[in-house]
């Protein structure tokens, strides 16, 4: 299993470090991070365009670190981070002529590519895209295809590449990885990818119907001091590490001006949850609405970043003409 185009590690393979505290979780003050935000309060998003001059368009997106993470940063106790925050870079190359061998296309051909850096997650990622990364690419492509005016660029291609430098956790690290538990962190990554790609496409001056933004909402159950597991609740922009269990989550790609959803991805089962409790509002519709609300929030950041990009472009072209 050696890759001749890369530098390989020891042939016998290596093992990720095992921490004493993960064997006996009681020893260190290993407490589950707690969500400090209101259920409908979103994390701040840092989004900037045009940082990569060699690309036609680019953006960099970073989620605000959770309270627990910033506390851990300020006064480090444990080498194990309590949670992580999404960081990714997106570049857009094109529109450019299609490859010689490609078949004719009357529309702009969109290619999306999402790759985690090997150091992006708690477990080292491989160099070759795995199924989940491919999956993200497909979801992202659907989300964007609905927003781009593709017939404006016949016989052309547009490459969108996203490098995830730091991904969200799927659950709290000390929780036993439950085989039935889904990769919840991926949903947040997808929301981030959609928002970042949208900014980069606008930065590349590709015609779009609207700025499409990504948002996540989830139904989560938390541990409370009094009654063990609390009743499931709907929350926006969840960090999976904050919660005891995530029952269901939804990510949407949403265009506010047209009130359209270009991509919807819903995972998990809330039928049990809604049966168990009185709250009849805990339906899939409510979940989707929550995700749309989260996307609206992201959209405001996105619009600001795109405005900045447009101003820079206008400044540039006026400078050129003088």
């Amino acid at each position, binding site marked *: 299993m050696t890759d001749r*185009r890369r530098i*390989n590690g020891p042939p016998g393979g290596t093992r990720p470090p095992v921490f004493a505290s993960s064997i006996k979780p009681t020893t260190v003050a290993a407490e589950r991070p707690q969500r400090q935000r209101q259920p409908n309060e979103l994390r701040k998003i840092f989004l900037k365009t045009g940082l990569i001059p060699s690309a036609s368009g680019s953006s960099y997106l970073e989620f605000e670190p959770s309270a627990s993470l910033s506390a851990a940063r300020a006064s480090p106790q444990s080498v194990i981070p309590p949670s992580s925050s999404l960081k990714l870079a997106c570049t857009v190359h094109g529109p450019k002529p299609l490859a*010689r061998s490609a078949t004719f296309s009357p529309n702009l051909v969109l290619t999306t590519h999402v790759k985690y850096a090997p150091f992006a997650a708690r477990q080292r990622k491989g160099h070759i895209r795995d199924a989940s990364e491919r999956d993200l690419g497909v979801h992202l492509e659907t989300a964007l295809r609905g927003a781009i005016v593709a017939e404006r660029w016949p016989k052309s291609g547009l490459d969108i590449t996203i490098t995830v430098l730091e991904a969200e956790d799927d659950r709290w690290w000390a929780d036993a990885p439950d085989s039935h538990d889904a990769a919840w962190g991926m949903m947040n990554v997808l929301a981030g990818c959609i928002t970042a790609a949208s900014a980069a496409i606008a930065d590349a001056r590709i015609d779009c119907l609207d700025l499409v933004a990504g948002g996540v909402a989830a139904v989560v159950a938390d541990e409370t001091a009094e009654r063990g597991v609390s009743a499931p609740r709907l929350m926006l922009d969840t960090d999976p590490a904050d919660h005891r269990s995530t029952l269901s989550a939804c990510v949407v790609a949403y265009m506010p001006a047209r009130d359209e959803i270009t991509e919807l991805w819903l995972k998990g089962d809330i039928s049990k949850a809604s049966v168990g409790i009185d709250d009849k509002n805990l339906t899939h519709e409510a979940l989707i609405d929550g995700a749309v609300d989260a996307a609206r929030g992201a959209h405001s950041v996105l619009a600001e970043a795109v405005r900045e990009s447009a101003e820079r472009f206008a400044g540039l072209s006026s400078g050129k003409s003088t």
Partner: protein
Amino acid sequence: MGGPTASLHPLSRADGSASYRCPATGSNVLGSVNAPIELPGRRDALKPEDATIEVFVKPGTAPGGVGERHIEGILRDALSRIILGREKGYPRRGVVITLAIVGGDSIGRGASYLPILPALLHTSILALLSASVPLSMSISATILAVDSSGKIIREPSSADAAATASLHVLAFTSKGHLLLNESEGAFNFDTWERVYERALTICHGTSALGSDGDVAMTETVDSQPLEGLVRDTVEDRIHVEYAWKIDAA
């Protein structure tokens, strides 16, 4: 310990080929050159006014890896400077150089490629000459090691190379330019200048730059300059091929 030996045109199917072995460093390289040839499928990448030079290095035992890609880049950069790719028949076509490391120690992961670099350079230049690819000049190269006491060792064996403070590969053109230098290990500039002087003597003998006079003493140590080896190899081959003409004249 004999000096390096070389032969021209050991392969009959290639346009040009050469083999080179240096007993001191234990390197043994067989190279072939095909030029000018069409490079189909790369039409977009071809330069309209120049030849495209491609170098492939095949290690003897292990499969190739990132180290080979690196050394191929070094060889291509050096050789493209002396190949006249704009001569008639060469633009838009390829000069393909394939070098097989036949003997000697295999180079491990991330290990230095310097010990075999002079042999690769010599094999390439001889194979290019044998293929009659137009060149602006010829080159010769050598490897020197400096041990911890500052002593310069010529063409160290792989065991010696591993135990030295620094390793230097220098390649000179037949007009005395420093075409390539690859040095690694810890050293200072004065040491390198001494290495440079010695390498120049090894490649060109004292006649090339004998203005100082003090280099004469090294003459006895480094018997035949390497440039002479390249020249002799080519001349021998031509003498054989044109025996009818030379005998007649």
